[in-house]
């Protein structure tokens, strides 16, 4: 298949898809395409979309998806009559704990947050932002939590490693002094 044709097909596939399309899935549809030319095609397409004012192709949750750009949000919200909802602070703090420490048990989250977290965990499970990974092999066999693909989609992350490290956060929030120990800790996390 010629290069230009592949690109048009990939674009059409992305256009119709309501979830991120992985390279694997695209390769399945475009039978027999080799990895390298698929990746080149995707790169080319992404570059083309960078020229566009209103749309872009983003890598989210291990796949590619076409998104409208930020400036167009007001019109889209008006069309669909939606107001974006926001997670509560408690939910965000709990999610941060799960995302950075998974697999993690409830007691660990509560020891950091200092408050009961069972209600929040329940809500996050319902929203499918976290999932139960199994049980920890300690007394009481508590449930282990981890984040889901929907978590990555919700925050627009390519994968879990895209979460900023503590060091990067500190750079954004410069008021804190960093001790040597903490630097080491954040490096270990990366």
């Amino acid at each position: 298949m010629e290069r230009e044709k592949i690109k048009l097909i990939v674009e059409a596939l992305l256009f119709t898809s309501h979830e991120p399309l992985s390279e694997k899935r695209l390769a399945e549809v475009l039978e027999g395409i080799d990895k390298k030319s698929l990746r080149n095609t995707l790169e080319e397409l992404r570059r083309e979309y960078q020229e566009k004012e209103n749309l872009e192709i983003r890598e989210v949750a291990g796949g590619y998806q076409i998104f409208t750009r930020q400036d167009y949000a007001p019109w889209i919200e008006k069309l669909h009559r939606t107001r974006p909802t926001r997670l509560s602070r408690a939910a965000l703090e709990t999610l941060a704990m799960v995302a950075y420490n998974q697999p993690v048990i409830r007691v660990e989250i509560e020891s950091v947050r200092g408050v009961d977290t069972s209600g929040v965990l329940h809500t996050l499970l319902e929203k499918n932002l976290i999932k139960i990974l199994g049980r920890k092999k300690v007394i009481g066999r508590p449930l282990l939590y981890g984040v889901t693909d929907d978590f990555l989609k919700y925050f627009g992350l390519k994968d879990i490693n895209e979460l900023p490290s503590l060091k990067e956060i500190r750079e954004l929030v410069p008021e804190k002094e960093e001790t040597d120990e903490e630097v080491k800790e954040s490096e270990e996390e990366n």
Partner: protein
Amino acid sequence: MAYHVKLEAYEGPLDLLLYLIKKEEVDIWDIPIAQIAGEYLGYINMMKLLDLDVIGEFLVMASTLMKIKSRMLLPQEEEAIEEEIEDPRSELIEQLLEYEMYKERAKTLAEKEEAQSKLFARPEAEIPSSQPTFEASLFDLLTAFRNVLKEKAPEIVREIEPFKITLEEKVEEILKRLESKEKISFSLLFKECLSKGELIVTFLALLELIKQKRVRIRQPKLFGEIAVYRAPA
């Protein structure tokens, strides 16, 4: 009736402590415990006064603060000075720092949430082929027709009448009905038939139309009701 207000600003005792440390502009590594504990208790009393739901966790922290305060007031024993004495505050400081770290992480998540919420992707599209319908077979049609015949109580008709309606007329009639409606259910098509003869003509007309690809028959689920659709032009 009591009001129950959840203080969104202070999610928990650690949050309140961090707030007080910032507000009083004190060093987190050298917290003036007496001062901060006093402030903290002041807030708890205020929360009680306002009949806010002062939960246990706030009280636990209050007692921790009092414990640290009392330990710091005690004179240190002489020989202990030689050794490395652990600051009674260190455990609390550690906890505060860790919590603060996650607060910052939660903040960056909130920023990402905000940014992502302004980007829209295609919602789940209605791709026609994904409709769960089966192409009904001739046998499905025959089965459905047999059911129709069964439902029509066997009338005892002794007169022999010529067919009043011809195949062509029935074909036209079905097509006409499909003009105004997207689909007709199979059983409805036969409901208005007056005689067994007309039932048969209707069925033959349907088969004819299928052969000519002027109508389509679909079944939303296996062995379900068959619907007759107008074939796309």
